[in-house]
């Protein structure tokens, strides 16, 4: 039997009673090692843009929260990324480098430029350290507060505060610049650091009252692209790939991290 459309709409309307939230949220975050074919080298190593090769023995990203963001007026790009506004430098892949070293999302800068209401998180779910090599698959809990207000969610972002990578590095060139040796990258990231990806989730009386979000983070050898490993200091028997004395290299790591592949799947 075919159910008349008006009856279906009527039933859907009944799912939201007076005082009910517009939607309930469930979310999970997954982490995995990025291994594109073009980077694959022998013995489990991955190629870098500098012709060095790395093999990871540890790779962990310290995530503090997954957030759903209503971009507000920042939803419309209000500046030319090739000519960022004063106070910002290189803009790429949805972020610009602020002069103080922070990576700032295009939406935030657009809101600053237009003077309109900036992005705001409509949901924030606590996260924790993600073990990339182990392939963490972490359901996120928000206690009794997994509800969403009416909003147009334009971005999913992962708040992060640290990164640890350890392993072995070798030179892929015929004349090695350095011998094969351990490396360690231990980064405490600037406050407000995040990874983000665009999305389009309408939360309203006219949309499904259920929102399931699955965010996947893919990290890999690209974190170390562009680093002159032959110049790195050795600390405790390992190359220090985030040396405090070399802020430009630290910045390069943060740029590489900002390029991290982030995929979001939303089911309603």
């Amino acid at each position, binding site marked *: 039997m075919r159910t008349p459309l008006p009856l279906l709409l009527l039933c859907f309307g009944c799912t939201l009673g007076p005082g009910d939230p517009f939607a309930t949220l469930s979310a999970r975050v997954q982490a995995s090692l990025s291994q*594109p*074919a*073009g*980077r694959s080298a022998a013995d489990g190593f991955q*190629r*870098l*843009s*500098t*012709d060095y090769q790395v093999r990871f023995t540890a790779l962990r990203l310290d995530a503090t929260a997954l957030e759903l963001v209503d971009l507000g007026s920042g939803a419309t790009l209000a500046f030319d*990324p*090739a*000519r960022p506004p004063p106070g910002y430098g290189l803009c*790429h892949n949805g972020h610009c480098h602020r002069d103080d070293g922070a990576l700032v999302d295009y939406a935030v800068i657009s809101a600053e430029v237009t003077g309109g209401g900036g992005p705001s998180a409509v949901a924030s779910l606590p996260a924790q350290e993600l073990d990339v090599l182990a392939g963490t698959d972490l359901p996120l809990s928000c206690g009794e507060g997994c509800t969403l207000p009416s909003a147009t969610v334009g971005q999913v972002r992962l708040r992060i505060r640290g990164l640890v990578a350890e392993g072995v590095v070798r030179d*892929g*060139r*015929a004349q090695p610049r350095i011998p094969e040796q351990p490396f360690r990258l231990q980064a405490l990231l600037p406050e407000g650091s995040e990874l983000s990806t665009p999305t389009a989730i309408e939360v309203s009386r006219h949309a499904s009252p259920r929102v399931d979000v699955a965010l996947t983070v893919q990290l890999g050898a*690209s974190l170390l*692209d*562009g680093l002159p490993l032959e110049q790195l200091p050795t600390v405790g028997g390992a190359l220090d790939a985030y040396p405090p004395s070399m802020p430009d290299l630290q910045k390069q790591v943060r740029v590489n991290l900002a390029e991290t592949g982030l995929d979001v799947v939303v089911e309603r």
Partner: protein
Amino acid sequence: MNRFSLVLSLSLLAGCGGTAAPEEDVEACEHLKEGPGVSVTAAKDASTALPTVNEPHKRHDISLVVESNGGARGGLVSYASTAEGDYALYLSVDVPVEVTDSAGNAVAFESTTGSVSSCSEVKSKRVLELGVGTYTFRFGPTPQPSVSLVVESAEHAH
């Protein structure tokens, strides 16, 4: 013009000129015209670290050095590729270019064209396949004192 003629004319127009310019051509034209530009001076040889032309979404204005007694110019720069795939080199003047990998092996161009439909600033477009790694671009010999270069991913060119 009756309605049938109008529809026919529009269809013919679409058939003649319906192919959109490759996205990377449009992007390269924008950067060649408007920058932002980064100035580098090519190295005469590889005895020291080569200047890099890695900046995404920028035009690299490369000063070429005198390489011979006859006054011919040229020089070397370095490009670090972070992904395997096709790339397009857009040049503001048509000068000879050779590309080699870190082992010194020559990388052949898949195609070379003298211009693109998107703008007049491009005088040479060369497409080649690169892997992840560092490559050397050798310019010259040429009488030109400089050349501007934009590198774009050309994955959607095929």
